[in-house]
């Protein structure tokens, strides 16, 4: 189980292992769940997971896509991790101390941890991982998490001291970053190192084989510090089509997959061998504008668009009620979500009034025009996410009702991000965020984060929000921080750089023979190394060596 501290865009590859489908809420719902309290765990059998996209690099410092993350989460460990109740607990660090002013963290590392090649894990490796995270030559998306670190020092082989220049609330959680071995990476170019395709880690599973765009195979780590996991193989199949995955599930070809709302609600006989799980996700989907585009500069226009989109229909019609409409930049189950903010109701009349106010007039054919130019733009979204493509089409239709000419362009995930979003080469997007457990969303909203490839690609800038974001990450204590993030929520909801659409539920199917799957506030898969299959139900004759 890897601590999912990073914020990432989620696209076609979001539907992956249940291990990372972590979510946080006591409201976690269970559709069907069999207790695994009965019986003693047995070794053997294979767990077959499915992913829409292939992993890019099996190095936690370099990769941020969810497929790589799924594998890295099994192969690598961080110093700390979230437990099932979203409390930070020690992983490679057995314990830690925080100084009174919050500026100094001292990690006490476990002494019985070995890399998959048998070398011991020490403070040198932590130091090395940190150096790579801060190295400008290294293509890591996580450097900014460590920008406020003043120094990291190895006091002795099993003690690491981290000193921060300023208080940084998400600091401790950022050490959930997977630790990488110094003895492997010290020679050669880090970004293109062969070990990025054949990783050596400390985690419960070790790497066995990777066939590009086909599958990745992991086997249990017999030396794992908590004891070896029960399952004899972890196979990660790359199946780029959700409906093919669904077919495979019916034939018991895969043991776990993410479901679309339509699939989740399909008749029960389809799920003969699998059980379904539903829980709130740490994701939200939005309709975002390029605020540099003159069309969307006027707040009255953005408010009009918010009035013209019927979120309730989106949630009921497309998500089949398996999700909730939202008003601001946090998942519903986050403590930073401000439930005081009222939902903007669906009202085409109000939308039209606002647009008239902003100078737009319907022409003879009912198309809104201003100074001779029609209100016309293109919504872009990524390929592979069915619900999102449909949402774009519904929005197109609803905006058509009030006289806007909207086109849709659906682009493959990586070219969508690199050619269009990163280069600010778009008018409006339908996209989603998978957020970390910490509500710090400085990267998405701070005005300093607008360079190519950074996350504030809509070019949002509000000095008040900037100030609050800075304060939020320097304040300790959930209650105090909550007050700050509620203000941020209120301000962003008023400025509407995005129209916040909905927070979908995570929908997952897992084969019934597995004992252990359990939904907790963190989501599912937090106890994956303890999953097992009773001997008489094992499907594959593979035994742990």
């Amino acid at each position: 189980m890897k601590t999912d501290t990073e914020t990432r865009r989620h696209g076609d590859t979001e539907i992956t292992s249940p291990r990372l489908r972590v979510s946080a809420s006591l409201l976690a719902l269970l559709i069907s769940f069999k207790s695994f309290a009965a019986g003693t765990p047995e070794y053997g059998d294979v767990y077959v997971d499915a992913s829409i996209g292939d992993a890019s690099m099996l190095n936690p410092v370099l990769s941020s896509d969810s497929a790589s993350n799924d594998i890295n989460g099994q192969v690598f460990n961080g110093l700390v991790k979230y437990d099932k109740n979203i409390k930070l607990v020690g992983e490679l660090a057995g314990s830690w101390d925080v100084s009174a002013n919050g500026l100094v963290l001292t990690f006490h590392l476990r002494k019985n941890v070995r890399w998959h090649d048998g070398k011991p894990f020490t403070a040198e490796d932590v130091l090395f991982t940190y150096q790579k995270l801060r190295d400008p030559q290294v293509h890591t998306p996580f450097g900014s998490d460590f920008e406020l670190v003043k120094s990291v020092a190895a006091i002795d082989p099993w003690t690491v001291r981290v000193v921060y220049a300023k208080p940084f609330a998400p600091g401790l959680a950022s050490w959930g970053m997977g630790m990488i071995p110094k003895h492997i990476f010290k020679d050669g170019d880090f970004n293109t190192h062969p070990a990025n395709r054949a990783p050596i880690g400390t985690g419960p599973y070790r790497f066995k084989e990777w066939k590009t765009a086909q599958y990745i195979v992991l086997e249990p780590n017999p030396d794992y510090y908590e004891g070896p996991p029960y399952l004899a193989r972890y196979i990660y199949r790359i199946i780029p089509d959700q409906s093919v995955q669904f077919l495979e599930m019916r034939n018991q070809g895969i043991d776990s997959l993410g479901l679309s709302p339509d699939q989740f609600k399909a008749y029960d006989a389809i799920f003969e061998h699998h059980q379904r799980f539903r829980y709130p996700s740490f994701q939200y989907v939005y309709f975002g504008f390029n605020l540099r585009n003159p069309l969307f500069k006027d707040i009255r226009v953005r408010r009009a668009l918010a009035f013209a989109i019927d979120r309730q229909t989106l949630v009921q019609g497309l998500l089949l009620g398996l999700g909730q409409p939202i008003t601001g930049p946090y998942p519903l189950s986050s403590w930073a979500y401000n439930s005081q903010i009222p939902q903007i109701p669906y009202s085409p009349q109000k939308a039209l009034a606002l647009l008239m106010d902003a100078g737009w007039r319907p022409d003879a054919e009912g198309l809104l025009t201003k100074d001779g130019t029609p209100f016309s733009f293109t919504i872009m979204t990524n390929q592979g996410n069915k619900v999102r493509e449909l949402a774009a089409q519904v929005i197109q239709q609803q905006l058509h009702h009030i006289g806007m000419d909207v086109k849709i362009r659906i682009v493959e995930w990586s070219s969508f991000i690199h050619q269009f979003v990163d280069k600010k080469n778009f008018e409006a997007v339908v996209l989603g965020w998978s957020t970390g457990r910490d509500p710090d969303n400085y990267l998405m909203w701070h005005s300093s984060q607008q360079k190519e490839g950074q996350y504030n690609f809509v070019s949002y800038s509000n000095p008040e929000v900037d100030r609050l974001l800075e304060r939020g990450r320097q304040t300790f204590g959930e209650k105090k921080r909550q007050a700050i993030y509620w203000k941020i929520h209120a301000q962003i909801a008023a400025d509407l750089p995005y129209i916040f659409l909905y927070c979908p539920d995570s929908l997952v199917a897992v084969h019934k023979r597995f004992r252990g799957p359990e939904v907790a506030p963190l989501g599912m898969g937090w106890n994956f190394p303890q999953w097992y299959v009773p001997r008489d139900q094992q499907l594959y004759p593979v035994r742990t060596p």
Partner: protein
Amino acid sequence: MLSLYLERFKRNRLAAAGLAIIVLLTLGAALAPALCPQDPTAQNLTQRLQGPSAQHWMGTDDLGRDVFSRLLTGTRVSLSVGFVAVGIALGVGTCLGLLAGFFGGRTDTFIMRWVDIMLSIPTLFLILAVLAFLGPNIYNVMIIIGLTSWPGLTRMVRGECLSVREREYVHAARLSGVSTPRLLFVHILPNVIAPILVSATLGVGGAILTESALSFLGLGVQPPMPSWGNILTIGKDYLHIAWWLSVFPACAILITVLAFNLLGEGLRDVLDPRT
């Protein structure tokens, strides 16, 4: 002569059935806006993925749109792509074939090697590449299908032309001083028209199939405009939940292509003097 053909055609039941289906489809396509029970692009999220019923004869799709209305509107796309593409192929293919067959020599060599080159390129991949470059829309689809399906026709027309140009009436026309274009289009073309007609009819079916394949891959007709191919694409995602989304457009494609093939085969039998 014509009455002989008509007589033969009437006796060929399959060909007549094919023709009847094509006439029906053409009428349906022409009158689609009037015949559609519902607006083919009107969404209704409360009526998603409903099975066939009195209200929705062929059910609804994943945005609650009426599948029957969408299929009917899609007929226009499919038939117009079929006819326009084949029209382009006919024009190009017949002219080149006549030139190659009539003049022979270098002209022939040049045109026939060009045909060989075109035939050696996998057509679908060529079309995909060109569409990815030009951007997908229905006009590009028509033109590109047309411009990639002439080589077979050219080869056939050339062969026919080679034999026809040695006939006595052609020699006679030439001796009496008829100009080359007149010779080609008035004296030779009418005598090679039978195989051209057959091949064109079969070609329409092929073009419709290609268009469906392109729309299925997302490179043909763009949503929300319906076409048989893109209705099928949606159907693929709901195979377990909504069979009607795949079965009806698939049947539409099957029946239409079959109708054109039956008609084509029938024409061949009718027009062939050896039968």
